[in-house]
C-alpha cells in the first residue's frame, strides 16, 4: 500500500537551531516525493521535489531508498519557517498521497 508517515505532529526549535522533519514512505515502485508547506493563512504550496535535488529557502531533502525516507532538513531555522509541513508521495496518474503533517514552530 502507498503510505506516507510523518511521526511528529509538532516540532519546536529555537531560532538558529538545526531542523529535521521526518518522512517515511511505503511504495512498491520508484518513488517521487515532495514537500509542501502551508504558512499561516496561506494556501498549501510546493516547497521542493526530490527529483530536482534543489535547495529552497535553505531546506533540502534527500531521498534514501534503503531507509524509505525523505527527511526535510535546514541547518539554521528562522522564525519565518514556522508553518505546517506535509510530505507527499506521487501514487500514479498524478495523484498524491499526503502524510499527516508536522507543525514546525521556531521560537526567537
Amino acid at each position: 500500500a502507498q503510505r506516507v508517515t510523518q511521526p511528529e505532529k509538532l516540532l519546536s526549535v529555537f531560532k538558529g537551531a538545526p531542523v529535521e522533519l521526518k518522512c517515511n514512505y511505503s511504495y512498491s515502485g520508484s518513488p517521487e516525493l515532495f514537500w509542501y508547506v502551508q504558512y499561516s493563512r496561506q494556501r498549501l504550496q510546493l516547497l521542493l521535489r526530490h527529483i530536482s535535488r534543489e535547495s529552497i529557502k535553505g531546506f533540502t531533502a534527500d531521498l534514501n531508498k534503503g531507509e524509505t525516507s525523505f527527511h526535510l532538513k535546514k541547518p539554521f531555522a528562522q522564525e519565518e519557517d514556522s508553518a505546517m509541513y506535509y510530505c507527499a508521495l506521487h501514487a500514479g496518474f498524478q495523484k498524491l498521497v499526503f502524510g499527516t503533517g508536522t507543525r514546525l514552530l521556531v521560537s526567537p
Partner: protein
Amino acid sequence: SAVISQKPSRDICQRGTSLTIQCQVDSQVTMMFWYRQQPGQSLTLIATANQGSEATYESGFVIDKFPISRPNLTFSTLTVSNMSPEDSSIYLCSAGTGAYNEQFFGPGTRLTVL
C-alpha cells in the same frame, strides 16, 4: 505553475442542503483533483476530475454524495450533497501540471454544516 481560485472561500450551511464549490485554473491543465482536509488532519483525496468523462472516486467517496463536473480544461465543480455536520471540513481543489507530477492548490473552501 498554475494559479487556482476557489469560490466560495467559506460557507455555513444547514443540514440536508447542498453546496457547490467552484475551482478555476488560469491555464489549461489535464488533471484536477478535489481533497478534503478535516480539522487537525491531513489531506484526503476525494476524486480526480476528468475532462469529458466521469470523475474517478477514491475509496470511501461516492458520486451521489460528491458529484463533480469538469466541463473544460480550466474549470471544475464539487458538490457536497445532503450535508451533515460530519461534512464540515476544508475542501481543496488542485491541478497537476504534468511537469514533475506535483500539484498546485487553491486556497480552499471552509465549510461548516450546522
